[in-house]
């Protein structure tokens, strides 16, 4: 099979996934298209190394390209990516409201699209990418571990923290709104 054919089979079916990941890493669709285009050029150059899971392979390239892009265009946003000390502070917090009718659950259920997107965009990069790979791309822990080059245990804790933060923020935003009304 020639490389052009391989590109059509390995890369083209996963463009929506690539674009979605890049959109959440860069923050905009326009920037995401630039990143994905660059990533696809890299993917084509390395097409012979495509593995048995082409989607995860492509997403890993998109991720790395996005980080290069971020380092150049948004230097402040990537500094803390792999700083585990920062994550340590964002400890998991479980509020004991078992006696109430879990008000957060109600607020989350009511959260609109814009509110959710703002909350995701506000997550630290390392949490955001784990969450997007899981909830929007639907990858398994094993695949996320491959794409992000981190152990599965770290995938687990980043996902748990990402969701924990989202729940807290949506809960707070909802309460703020209710108080103002």
């Amino acid at each position, binding site marked *: 099979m020639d490389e052009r054919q391989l590109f059509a089979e390995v890369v083209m079916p996963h463009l929506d996934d690539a674009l979605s990941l890049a*959109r959440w890493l860069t923050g905009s669709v326009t920037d995401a298209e630039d990143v994905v285009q660059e990533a696809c050029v890299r993917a084509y150059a390395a097409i012979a190394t495509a593995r048995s899971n082409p989607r995860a392979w492509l997403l890993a390239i998109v991720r790395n390209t996005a980080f290069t892009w971020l380092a150049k265009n948004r230097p402040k946003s990537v500094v803390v990516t792999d700083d585990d000390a920062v994550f340590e502070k964002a400890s998991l917090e479980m509020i004991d409201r078992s006696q109430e009718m879990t008000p957060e659950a109600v607020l989350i259920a009511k959260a609109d699209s814009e509110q959710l997107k703002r909350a995701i965009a506000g997550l630290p990069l390392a949490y955001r990418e784990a969450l997007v790979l899981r909830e929007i791309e639907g990858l398994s822990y094993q695949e996320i571990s491959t794409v992000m080059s981190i152990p599965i245990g770290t995938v687990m804790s980043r996902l748990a923290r990402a969701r924990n933060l989202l729940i807290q923020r949506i809960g707070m935003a909802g309460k703020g709104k209710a108080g103002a009304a």
Partner: protein
Amino acid sequence: MNKPPAWTSREESLLLLNAYLDNELDAASVLDVERRIGADATLKAELGRLVELRNALATQVSKERASDAFRQRIAAIADVPKGSPAAAQRTRPSGRSFDWRQMAAAAALAAVLASAGTYVALQQTASTGEIAEIVAGHQRALLAAAPFDVASSDHHTVKPWFDGKLALSPQVVDLNDAGFPLAGGRVDVVDGKPVPAIVYKRRQHVISLIAVPHPGSTDGGEPLTHATRDGYFLLGWPGRDFHYTAVSDLAQPELEEFAARWRSAATR
């Protein structure tokens, strides 16, 4: 560290709760987590919040869709043969340059032309043409607003729908407990004939299970046949009066799990 033991166990509970929600635990751990949830109202409330969050994300935050113009730009990357800058001048004909029919046709042609040992991805009973048609049907369904014509998580709805539509009754098994909820059914065309396609979901992934009639066929525990095409995995196996082919972009082990569970439920 100096964390009180209760805190450590709480954090561990939360990690396990997330993995439980994500269907990433083995059976023993599932039991353990369910026991913890049953005994701990706080955990139960947390699970409720996580489920709401997941539902909200699934319904409110959708995937990006690459525009046709963008697809063409990306497809054009491969139009430039490597190490041959002169060829960069070549441009694609105008109009839609990325088209599943062209892709499927090109793939079929490439498979025919490929000399022995260049690329072996197919070892299946379904013909190459059928594979291309099955993948094309799956891709077309993914591009549509919904990957099915009848939406139902109830196999008692989907099976009669096929019967009424095609006078064919493939087995429609319920795999919800195994994490593969039924999403619905649609009609695909394979080898010129309309055939049932049963649609299952796995997280955000869609699995199309195409049932091609083979009267008299039974599941004798034959090994799965494997194929890949356009980045999708296909697994095939014989069943009662039908040959089944599952196609999805799921990773191979998960699709194999689906096939194994489906066959075991169908022959029960």
